[in-house]
C-alpha cells in the first residue's frame, strides 16, 4: 500500500519534455481525453463499441504518458487505482453471487477499465501542463491567490506521499493493522509544520505569474491528429 501511494504521486508530476507543444494544444488534449473517457457509453448500446472506444483511449493515454514518463512509471502509478478497481469489482461480483441486483460481469470489467482511463486522462492535466502554466492560467482567470496556493500544494504532493508511506509503516508496526487510522495524527501535524515552512519559502523566494503561454507550435498537429482519430472513432461507432 505504502509504495503504491508513492508511485501514485508520480503521475501528478509534470513531464520534462513538453516544450515542443503549445500550452493550448496540451490543455485541449487533456480536456478532450477527460471528456472522451466520461462519454464512453454515450450514443451507443453496443458493448463492442464501448470496448473499441475504451481500448483506443487507454492505448493513447498509456502511449502518451509512457513517452514522457516511461512505461514502468506509468504502470506503477496505476497500482493504487487498481487496488480500488479490484475492490469495486469484487463487491459487484459478490452482490451478483448473493442475488442482489448487480451489473453484468462484463459491465463490471468495462466500468473498471473506464475508471482507469478517466484517472489517467485527469492526470494528463498535471503531466502535460506545468505548474508555472497553471499559475498563469489561474492568474489570467482572476484567481490570483488560488494560483499560488494551488502550485504550492501540488509541488509538495510527492514529498507528502513519501511521509504518508513512512507513517503507514511505522504505525502498522507500532499498533498493528487495527489502529492504522491513527496515522492521521502525525500526518496532520507534519502538514502543519510543512505549511509553516512553505509560508517561509513563499516569503523568501516568492513565485512569479509572468509565464508566457503559447498558443501554437508546429508539433501541435500531432496532438490535434490524435484528437481527430478519437473523434472519428466515436462517430464511426455511433453510426456503423
Amino acid at each position, binding site marked *: 500500500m505504502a509504495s503504491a501511494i508513492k508511485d501514485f504521486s508520480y503521475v501528478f*508530476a*509534470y513531464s*520534462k519534455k513538453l516544450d515542443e507543444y503549445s500550452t493550448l494544444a496540451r490543455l485541449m488534449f487533456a480536456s478532450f481525453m477527460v471528456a472522451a473517457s466520461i462519454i464512453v457509453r454515450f450514443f451507443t448500446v453496443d458493448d463492442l463499441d464501448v470496448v473499441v472506444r475504451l481500448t483506443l483511449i487507454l492505448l493513447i493515454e498509456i502511449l502518451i504518458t509512457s513517452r514522457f514518463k516511461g512505461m*514502468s512509471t506509468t504502470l506503477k502509478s496505476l497500482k493504487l487505482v487498481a487496488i480500488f478497481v479490484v475492490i469495486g469489482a469484487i463487491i459487484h461480483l459478490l452482490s451478483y453471487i448473493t442475488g442482489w441486483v448487480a451489473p453484468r460481469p462484463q459491465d463490471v470489467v468495462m466500468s473498471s477499465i473506464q475508471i482507469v482511463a478517466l484517472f489517467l486522462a485527469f492526470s494528463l492535466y498535471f503531466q502535460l501542463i*506545468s*505548474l*508555472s502554466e497553471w499559475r498563469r492560467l489561474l492568474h489570467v482567470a482572476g484567481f490570483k491567490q488560488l494560483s499560488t496556493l494551488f*502550485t*504550492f500544494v*501540488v*509541488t*509538495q504532493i*510527492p*514529498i507528502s506521499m*513519501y*511521509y504518508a508511506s*513512512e*507513517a503507514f*509503516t*511505522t*504505525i*502498522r*508496526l*507500532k*499498533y*498493528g493493522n*487495527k*489502529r492504522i487510522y*491513527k*496515522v492521521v*495524527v*502525525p*500526518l496532520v*501535524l*507534519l502538514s502543519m509544520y*510543512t505549511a*509553516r*515552512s*512553505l*509560508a*517561509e*519559502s*513563499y*516569503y*523568501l*523566494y*516568492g*513565485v*512569479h505569474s*509572468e509565464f*508566457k503561454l503559447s498558443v501554437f507550435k508546429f508539433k501541435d498537429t500531432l496532438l490535434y491528429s490524435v484528437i481527430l482519430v478519437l473523434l472519428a472513432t466515436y462517430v464511426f461507432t455511433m453510426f456503423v
Partner: protein
Amino acid sequence: MTSNTPVLEVKNLYFRYQSGDYVLRGLNLVVDKGEHVLIIGDTGSGKTTLTRVLTNTALTIYGGRVEGLIKIMGKRLDELNSDEPRREIFLIGQNPYLFFVEPLVREDLYNYALRVHRNHEHAEKAVKKAIESTGIHKLVDRYFYELSGGEARRVQVAKSLISDPALLLFDEPLMWLDDKGVNDFLNLLRLMRNLGKSVIVFEHRFLPIMRSFDKVYLLSNGRLHDVTEHAWRLTKKPYSLRTDPNQQRSSDENREVILEANDIHHVYNGNNVLRGINLKIRRRDFILIYGLNGSGKTTLLKILAGYLKPSKGTVKKHCDTIYIPQNTILFFTEETIEKEVNEICKTRNLGDNCVREGLRILGELGFDVHQSPFNLSHGQMVKLAVTLAQLTRAKLILLDEPFSGLTYVDRVKLLGHLRELGITVVLTVSNLDAYQEEYWTKTYRLDNGLLVEFKPDKLFSLDRAAWLYEELKNGVSN
C-alpha cells in the same frame, strides 16, 4: 558603504515569539565580507530562530518581537524595503526540499530568477550562470524530490547565486547528509570562498567541517560566544577514553539468536538494493549498520521488522520488533505522553501494570507525561519512542538514523539510555564523523547491496566529540 563595512552587524539583539520567553538575549555578531562563520549550539538554543530573525520571517511569518540593531551591508534591517533583505541574505534551511516552489529543478531556478530580475532574458542568463558556477548540469532536469539531501542543497546554493546575495545562511546543512554529502558540502564552502561570499553555518555536528571556518561561535543562553581559539586548542589536546568496563560490548557468540536473516535479496524499481544479506542478531546485541544515503539501510530495517517481504531469502524472528523511523514525529499519535503509554499498553493487552511501569520509567527519565510528544526536541522524541517500544516487550528495536539532528552529547546519552534498557538494538547511520567501537558488538557496512562486517579507520571518537562540546560549553559558562 565602504569596503570595510561588515556584511552583517548585529548589536544587542533580543527576540521572543508571541508566546514564551526571550530566545535571543543581547546577541552580538559581526560578519565581514568573505568571512565564514560557524555557529554551534544545543537543540533549541535558538539557531533556527536567529536565521528567522536575520531573514525577517521571525517578524513577518512568526509575529515575534525583535529588539536591537541589525545592519545588512551597513543599512538597518528595519529601514530596508521588504525585497532587500531577501536579496542580500539567502537562507538554505534544514529541510531543503521545503524550499522548492516548482517540481522541476530548472523551473524552480527560473521562477526565482524571474522574480529577482523581472525580465525573461536576464533571468535565463542568471540561471545559466548559476548552473555553470555550481556544476549542477546533471540535476536541472530532475524533480526536486528525486534529489539526495546533498544534491538538493547544491541546487539551493545555485539558486542563491541568482540574486547574488552578500550573505548565505545554512541552517543545519549536515542534517541527513552522509559522509559523501559532507564532502560535497565542503566543496560548496570552498566555492563560496572563491566567490568571496560571506557564510554563516548553524550546525551542531561540527567536527567534519570546523576547520573550514574563520570563526566558531557557541550559541548559549541566547548569546553568541567566540570559542574559535578554545575549540582549536581542545581538538589538539590529548584525550583518554572514559569508557567504563560495562560499556564494552561483548560479542559473545553463545547468546540466544533472536533474528536470523538468510540470503536476503530485494529488488526495488528494477535495482538490486540488497544482494544476499546474511545477518544473525543475538539477544543484547548492539549492531551498527553504516551506509551512504540510498544504500538500502531503511529497506533492510523494514525487512527485518517484517514489514517488507524480501524478493528472495528468509527472515526468522523469535521476538517482537519495533521500528523507529528517521522522521521520529511519525511514531507518535496521541496528544500527551501519558496517552501514548496508555495506548501502546492497551494495544498489546499488557494491562494496568504496563501503564504504571511506563509512567514510572518516563517520570524517572524526567519526562512531563502531560506534555505533548510533538513538543519535544528530536533527541527527546527518540528517547521517548525507545522507552515506549520497550514497554511493548519488543526485544528488538530497529532505529533508522536516530543520530540525525542530535548533538554529540545527545548521541552519547541516547546510547547510554539504550544500554540501560538492556534491549537488542540495530541502528543505522550514514556518517561516521564520531564513531566509537566500544559501543557496538558488531559494525557492518552496507554498500552496493552487500552487508559486510568492517572496522572503520581511526576516527574521532564519539565520547571525545561529546567531551569537546561539553568543554566548550563549560568554558563559556565559566
